[in-house]
């Protein structure tokens, strides 16, 4: 019953949106507001364009490499900070600073430091999301219930099992929430970094479209950026739910 209403609502709101968009496109010049028809057409055209998939692949590759590097390094940093007082004093302030350095400063610095290829894009993403991963992991590490570790010690549970059975499940929720924020940030950052620094990838396509005042292309590309971003968020949520089955109701 509710589902039926939901569907009706979606159809209704989409139709309203398209009508308003159509009217706006008739009022304003095509560069400002392209017609829905032309944007939808571009979306379809991309579907059959081999180069588009190549660019999408390059962008995904850069994002994935950066994401994985930042995940590993970020978690490692969190453990170092948590279990070494000296390292905490040294690293923690940098982590806080890293968190507030504007992305655009990194982009400018990276353009000076690195050759203009994938490295530069990966670098920018890594420095942007490391603090997100580290601080979230750290939160989880500080919240481990020490009484459970004590329990495991008393019952002679081996160290490996303590890590597998207590530490990892305890910090997983915090890591997942860091991963979720970091995933969105990665996807937005990869496109922005590409746009400003390199000639390949979805970001570069946006840059070309902008140079040509092809607003319909910008919108069609943005549509794909959103779709791909949502797909990855969905996959991550599935993974998280799998890990946290115990939180679900029976």
């Amino acid at each position, binding site marked *: 019953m509710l589902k039926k209403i939901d569907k009706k609502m979606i159809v209704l709101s989409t139709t309203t949106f398209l009508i308003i968009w159509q009217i706006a496109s008739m009022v304003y010049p095509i560069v400002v507001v392209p017609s829905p028809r032309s944007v939808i057409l571009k979306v379809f055209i991309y579907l059959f364009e081999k180069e588009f998939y190549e660019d999408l692949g390059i962008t995904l590759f850069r994002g994935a490499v950066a994401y994985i590097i930042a995940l590993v390094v970020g978690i490692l940093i969190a453990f170092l900070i948590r279990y070494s007082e000296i390292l905490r004093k040294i690293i923690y302030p940098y982590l806080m600073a890293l968190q507030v350095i504007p992305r655009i400063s990194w982009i400018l610095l990276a353009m000076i430091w690195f050759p203009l290829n994938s490295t530069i894009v990966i670098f920018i993403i890594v420095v942007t999301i490391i603090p997100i991963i580290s601080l979230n992991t750290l939160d989880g590490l500080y919240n481990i219930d020490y*009484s*459970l570790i*004590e*329990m*495991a*010690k*008393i*019952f*002679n*549970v*081996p160290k490996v*099992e303590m890590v597998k*059975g*207590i530490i990892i*499940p305890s910090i997983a929720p915090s890591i997942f929430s860091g991963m979720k924020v970091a995933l969105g940030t990665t996807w937005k950052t990869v496109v922005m970094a590409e746009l400003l620094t390199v000639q390949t990838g979805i970001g570069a396509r946006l840059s070309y479209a902008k140079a040509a005042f092809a607003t319909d292309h910008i919108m069609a590309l943005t549509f794909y950026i959103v779709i791909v971003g949502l797909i990855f968020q969905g996959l991550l949520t599935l993974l998280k739910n799998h890990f*946290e089955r*115990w*939180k679900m*109701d*029976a």
Partner: protein
Amino acid sequence: MHKNIEIKNIEKSYGEFQILDNFNLTIPRDKIMCIVGSSGCGKSTILNIVSGLVKPDSGDISNIDDKLISYVFQEPRLLLWKSAKDNLKYVLKGKIDEKNLDEYVEDWLDNVGLSDYKDFYPRQMSGGMMQRLALARAFAMPSNLLLMDEPFKGLDAPLRHKMIELLQRLWENDKKTIIFVTHDIQEALLIGHRVVALSGRPAEVLDNIKLNMPIKDRKIGCTKLNRIQGTLYELIEKGSLGVNNCKIKDKYCPPIGFDTINKNMFNYH
């Protein structure tokens, strides 16, 4: 052959609070020793020191090195992300023969009345069910020293009784050293070979009673137990009123004379 556990001259303070001051206690081997005392007097602290989880400021404990310890903590301390069955398996893995493990775990869940809940996660259980799961875990763990910190709290009277019987049976089948902390003097009298009453801070042994009555003969409401119970209540109440040094012991303890009730049943330590 292991010897009695000797707690000698233990000192322990938290900040300015002296919890234990020159505390001494002998824990008889392969017997059940119950410790009663008012809330906050240091019972859990004593268990934690015996288990090695808390280091005393000074003093030592002898004959503890060869002990395999099992512990019912004051809180259930369960892994929320593991089912009832997996919580038991988690601590028993490698200690029980792999091919019998499932059966062994299920038997223990059955013993505490949780056989229908083996796939439940702790958050799907009631407080008493979690407590019973913690009990099953401690009972199932192969050990020669079992520490129990108010293990039957949160259980209704019939269940409590069942658990007491279970503990009695467990001990009859596998005689091990058990230290049993409780607020419930009746409970202590039903299962203890010894009952130790502690005073308030710093904790002192107000009395250390030996009960010779066979554990399986002890029944709720039996006159002998009732009378000891009354005396113990009085003792603890006085001991926890705040005036908590040896004077209390001098004043109230020696003349109580349990042996006038039944000479065979217990004698002073």
